[in-house]
């Protein structure tokens, strides 16, 4: 603190505007939260000047209380359903509804400009109300959301006069055959980012072309499958300033005039740093994009199922500056070797399964990962779906790459041991946590005993999120983690033999965390009730299959799914019948 002793400088001498200006430089949510705790005066100034709020769990506070706390709110990030909802473990209608938030903000005349949502249920009604209530609304980002149709998008397009960003990532959107794109008025020229890759339906191509033509600030454009090759070519001619491009359908005859035109158009787009899409692809057309590959920092081919390993590697050869790569496992171990020898700047790698249910055909193994770790020392973020993994490989990876912040390994057969030694993968993951002192996120798979949790509790001191499936032998495993990982915020567990003892050992711990998910474990209803009773600051929710009613179960019954989270507002009012709030 540079204020000096109290005798020399009186903090109240500084007008609020000065402090506010200083606070403007503090952008991290954590830091701003700390600032508000310093004293009443700082709390007040911070409160009124706070514009961006992040809520990792939309049920931790009510819309009304949030608005009262931060009346100057302009940008809101909300996350709804628990992470495992992405994998169908949470029934529909569980919750995470956007509407109450829009309604409350509209009522209080909040000057909302930006809304970022993840795993929320977004109705058309809420999108319509949103578009009508906030005249300065600029940015809508929806990730893994559902509940809306193209009608809701039409309202956003039509009514948000200053819209800069409409970014739809991996949402389930019902297509109503409307012309939502045509709803952008001719006067709308402010678009900077437009991503509709996840939409399944047809698009009015002429409207799209006109929209792009009148958006001089457009930097990011991601198309869906319905946008054909020749439209892509015309769009690129109109928008050579693009920085981020997601192609739609990329299928054409390489000997045609349209193909040559595209080649020329792409060569003109020398600002493109990020490339994705290829939702439908003719491999023979890929050479057209080689000229822009040398400047790419992000390449996402994880939906380009039409590209085989040799085409992928030919492409990768040109991408020397790549920092982030998302790819399908058909690249193979050898292909990953090419990545390792070409992409020396690589920081993030995600290898997705091209055939998730046919584990026998998975094309990458521990070999690919070892090659990557040897060639890409800057690697700090990994998501790797593979057929098998060995302890030796993980130990080598840990030696080569000590900078991992995120390490997510998914062996397609969830309890597969090390195929060479037939041992569990405890030692391998142990090496990772020991070596990567900055590890914040970890997902485990393969055959694992309590020992791996011993290592995690001992070494993963910065760990914030841990995902466990089909692992461990006893309550000791879970206890190692709860006791050792001081920074733990999110813990999600499925199909592990952790029970009441582990759950109830340190109930106060859950107040330091955002949430805990346990499904198909050994936790009983009685223990959940005890926890709920002792900890009023936690919501303990039990999610049941529809055939069970409260009267049939007694306390000794094991619960199917338990989700608990800290909250300031007690039980939520919108829980469906199959969710019991203890």
């Amino acid at each position, binding site marked *: 603190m540079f204020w000096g002793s109290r005798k020399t400088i009186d903090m109240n001498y500084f007008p609020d505007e000065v402090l506010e200006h200083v606070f403007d430089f503090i952008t991290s949510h954590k830091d701003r939260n700390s600032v508000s705790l310093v004293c009443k005066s700082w709390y007040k100034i911070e409160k009124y000047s706070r514009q961006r709020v992040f809520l990792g769990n939309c049920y931790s506070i009510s819309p009304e209380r949030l608005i009262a706390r931060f009346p100057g709110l302009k940008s809101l990030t909300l996350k709804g359903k628990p992470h*495992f909802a*992405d*994998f*169908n*473990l949470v029934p529909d209608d569980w919750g995470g509804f956007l509407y109450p938030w829009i309604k409350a903000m509209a009522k209080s005349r909040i000057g909302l400009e930006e809304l970022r949502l993840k795993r929320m249920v977004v109705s058309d009604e809420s999108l319509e109300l949103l578009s009508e209530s906030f005249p300065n609304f600029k940015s809508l980002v929806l990730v*893994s959301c559902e509940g809306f149709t193209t009608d809701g998008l039409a309202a956003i397009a039509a009514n948000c006069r200053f819209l800069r960003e409409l970014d739809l990532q*991996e*949402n*389930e959107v019902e297509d109503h055959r409307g012309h939502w794109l045509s709803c952008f008025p001719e006067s709308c020229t402010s678009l900077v980012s437009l991503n509709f890759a*996840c939409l399944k339906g047809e698009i009015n191509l002429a409207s799209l072309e006109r929209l792009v033509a009148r958006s001089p600030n457009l930097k990011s454009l991601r198309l869906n499958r319905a946008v054909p090759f020749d439209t892509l070519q015309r769009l690129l001619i109109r928008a050579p300033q693009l920085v981020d491009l997601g192609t739609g359908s990329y299928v054409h005859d390489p000997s045609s005039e349209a193909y040559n035109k595209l080649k020329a158009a792409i060569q003109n787009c020398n600002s493109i740093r990020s490339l994705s899409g290829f939702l439908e692809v003719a491999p023979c057309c890929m050479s057209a994009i080689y000229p822009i590959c040398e400047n790419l920092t992000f390449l996402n081919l*994880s*939906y380009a*199922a039409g590209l*085989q*390993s*040799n085409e992928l590697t030919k492409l990768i050869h040109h991408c020397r500056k790549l920092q982030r790569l998302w790819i399908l496992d*058909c690249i193979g171990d050898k292909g990953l070797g090419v990545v390792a020898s070409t992409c020396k700047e690589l920081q993030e790698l995600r290898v*997705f*399964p*091209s*055939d*998730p*249910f*046919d*584990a*026998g*055909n*998975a094309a990458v193994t521990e070999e690919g990962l070892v090659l990557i770790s040897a060639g890409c020392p800057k690697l700090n973020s990994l998501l790797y*779906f593979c*057929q*098998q993994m060995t302890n030796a490989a993980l130990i080598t990876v840990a030696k080569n790459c000590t900078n991992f912040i995120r390490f997510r390994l*998914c062996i*397609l*057969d*969830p*309890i*597969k*041991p090390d*195929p060479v030694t*037939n041992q*569990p993968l405890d030692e391998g993951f142990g090496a990772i946590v020991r070596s990567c002192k900055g590890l914040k996120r970890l*997902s485990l798979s393969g*055959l694992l*005993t309590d020992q791996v949790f011993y290592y995690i509790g001992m070494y993963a001191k910065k760990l914030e999120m841990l*995902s466990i*499936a*089909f692992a461990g*032998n006893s309550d000791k495993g879970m206890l190692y983690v709860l006791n050792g990982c001081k920074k733990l915020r999110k813990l999600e567990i*499925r*199909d592990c*033999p952790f029970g009441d003892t582990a759950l109830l050992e340190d109930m106060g711990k859950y107040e330091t965390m955002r949430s805990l998910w346990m499904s198909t474990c050994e936790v009983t209803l009685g223990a959940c009730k005890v926890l709920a009773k002792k900890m009023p600051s936690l919501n303990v929710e039990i999610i049941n*299959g529809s*055939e*069970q*009613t409260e009267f*049939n*179960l*007694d306390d000794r*019954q*094991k619960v199917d799914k338990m989700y608990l989270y800290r909250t300031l507002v007690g039980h939520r009012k919108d829980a469906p019948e199959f969710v019991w709030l203890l």
Partner: protein
Amino acid sequence: MAFEKDFNLDATELRLGLPGTSEESEKQASTTLRISNKRAMTDMNEDSSVAADKKCDQETAPPTKAQVVGWPPIRSYRKNSLQTKKTEAETCGMYVKVSMDGAPYLRKIDLKMYKGYPELLKALEDMFKFKVGKYSEREGYNGSEFVPTYEDKDGDLMLVGDVPWGMFINSCKRLRIMKGSEARGLRCVV
């Protein structure tokens, strides 16, 4: 060799409680225990016990692939998108003519029906009643009475089995089962 991995998928079959180490059989035992607990509890109510039984049956039935809910952990959006691509590919069909030296008429097969070379060769063997020898990169199908070949996009006559399966089905225009004696010239020169 590209397609030999297709054999013996058992070792990597996705299911709960693989046989093998004691931990796994313990897990299997505990899973079974859990299921019987459920049964006892719901006996009181007729209707729900029927439903519970059905659920339990699903859990104890020998799991085929994709039986484990929510595994592998990929977003539904991505999973659905892959499925769509697969079904689309499936409905298209990729029919090619198959001729055999000495046979009176040709046949047609859908290449999309097969997952890899072993299945294709087996199907051809069954259809034309012949046996093909073992494939090796050096020797081709040396020693066989008949050798499977195909005409690719460029019109060249190629030996079946050299390239990865995916590449093969995309470039194969028609198949020809050649007499072994004629096929000698196709052996690749190393």
